[in-house]
């Protein structure tokens, strides 16, 4: 697949989360859908504003936990009953109360791993390249104290001139073009 070229989007920089959220709300209202906000800390209102309401991390976590539980409990039962039955002080081979502890630990282990790495996978991370880093002012503040709204050129409503004048009306610090 050839690398995309040309304009990735238009990026507006804001000084505060409040300005960003209001601009994002206005953009959503104006009909833009393919856009993203970049903030130095979690701004849930901004995600709401651009229409991102649900994430699937909890589901991934649940699946991981169930798999961990079934895997460990099944393994213990299989070992103790079929693969390597041992008579330990006359206890039954299927002595389930003793199996609860490792099964419990593995439920937590795999739901935790699923939540953490599932979150990264859902975010499309790790990623070695992303166009937003091409914006000259992005690395200067996106992870410190600046707030960005990027309207992406793949949006059907996106037209460079119109998008620029829209963003400039939101009283940003600056509006810059982002190349692929």
């Amino acid at each position: 697949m050839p690398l995309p070229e040309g304009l990735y989007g238009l990026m507006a920089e804001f000084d505060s989360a409040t300005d960003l959220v209001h601009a994002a709300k206005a953009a959503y209202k104006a009909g833009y859908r393919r856009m993203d906000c970049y903030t130095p800390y979690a701004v849930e209102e901004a995600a709401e504003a651009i229409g991102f309401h649900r994430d699937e991390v909890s589901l991934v976590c649940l699946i991981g936990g169930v798999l961990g539980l079934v895997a460990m409990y099944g393994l213990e039962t299989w070992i103790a009953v079929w693969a390597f039955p041992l008579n330990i002080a006359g206890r039954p081979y299927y002595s389930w109360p003793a199996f609860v502890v490792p099964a419990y630990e593995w439920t937590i282990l795999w739901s935790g791993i699923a939540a953490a790495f599932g979150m990264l996978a859902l975010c499309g991370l790790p990623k070695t390249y992303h166009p937003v880093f091409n914006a000259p002012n992005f690395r200067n503040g996106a992870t410190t104290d600046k707030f960005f709204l990027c309207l992406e050129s793949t949006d059907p409503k996106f037209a460079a001139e119109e998008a620029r004048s829209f963003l400039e009306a939101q009283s940003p610090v600056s509006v810059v073009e982002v190349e692929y």
Partner: protein
Amino acid sequence: MATKDAPVNNPMLDPVTGEYRVIAPGHTFKSVTEEVSRIVLTSHTPLGWWFGFLIAGTGVGMLMVAVTYLFVKGVGIWAVTIPVAWGFAIVEFVWWIGIGHAGTLISAILLLFKQGWRNSINRFAEAMTIFAVMCAGMFPVLHLGRPWLGYWLFPYPNTMNYWPQFRSPLMWDVFAVSTYATISVVFWYIGMIPDLATLRDRATSKIGQFTYGILSVGWRGSVRHWVRYETASILLAGLATPLVLSVHSVISLDFSVALLPGWHTTIFPPYFVAGAIYSGFAMVLTLAIPIRKFYHLEDLITIRHLDNCNKVMLATGLIVAYGYSSEVFMAWYSASHWEYFMMWNRMFGPMGWSYWTLITCNIALPQLLWSRRLRRNVLFTFIMSLIINTGMYFERFVIIVTSLTRDYLPSSWGTYRATKWDYMTFAGTLGFFTFCFFLFIRFLPMIPMSELRLMLPQAKVKAKPEPFSGTPVPEAGD
């Protein structure tokens, strides 16, 4: 609740609540970021750091020597023998893993309870957890006798057609501790990604940009990512909470499932967990107080943090005291001769000194923490944290060594006297722990910047845009 022991015009006091602030006033997003990242990104390593690192490195060297000799000669170089087959090695295993518990408590349980003050100290408390679990994990393996066969503990298909025996608490331990170590590392790393991205963007050296760039997995602060990230954090916190409560409970089952007087008791799981948190908070303070002094982080790790940690120590210390009293009471109430003798032996037997040291360090002296003035005194807090760490060490010593020296049959009684190799191994792990910690504070952000930003008053999104002097914006407020 107004505080009377500090002047009213003290800038660290919140004028509305009269409480100590969590962060000093006047900070901006940039200033908190700079204050934390400067420690890592400077090319100048402070001389004091090198000094401490060297001492810690000597400890690591000592550990290497002790462990090498152990591999060559076997566990006979330690004082472990019958009847005390679980000497220092298991005392230190339990002690270290207990210390780890405060890190998880601070990062997970206090997150669920929305205790904002935890944000300044959670990262290095988690680091402390990881390094403490690493130290703890060494001991059972070294204690195996043939440590190179340690992997036999894990269930895997092998040519011997052998599988582990899951009815043993020692087997549960393997899963509890390995899960705890893994989840702690994952939680710590995931929590650090946004801060690593900050370091990537602020680093000036090529090596720094590259290393932090790889570690930050391309984090760009997209709000979609932030929402998933927050969900994952809450989930991990929710998972770490039952995990941390289970780990020390499972470890306590190593003892309470056995029939030995002094071990065979149902109070162990809750009392072990409380003790773990108790010692862990003490270790947090032992580390935090020198660090905040050395790196001038008094603005971010404030008196409020010390005060709150002290309160947690006071509370968990009282739970531990309840555990001790319950043991004494049950020894009498059970009317069991063996239980009664066990308690008498603990208090007045040949190792009675260790019991009274434990009571002094863990119950008597910490009562001074009732005083608000002392709780907010930095030097006192530091000394108290060392006392509690010592006390908790003796708790495990009393449980393990004193109980084992005199069990049912007087003919099988024995004594215990640690060898120089025991002491060297313990001191070596202290060195290893500090060694890792020095590396951590030099190369990784020890205070979570992204969470500090969230705590600043300007982080809140205001409902209406503030009036401005420029041209009016249509539909700015929705």
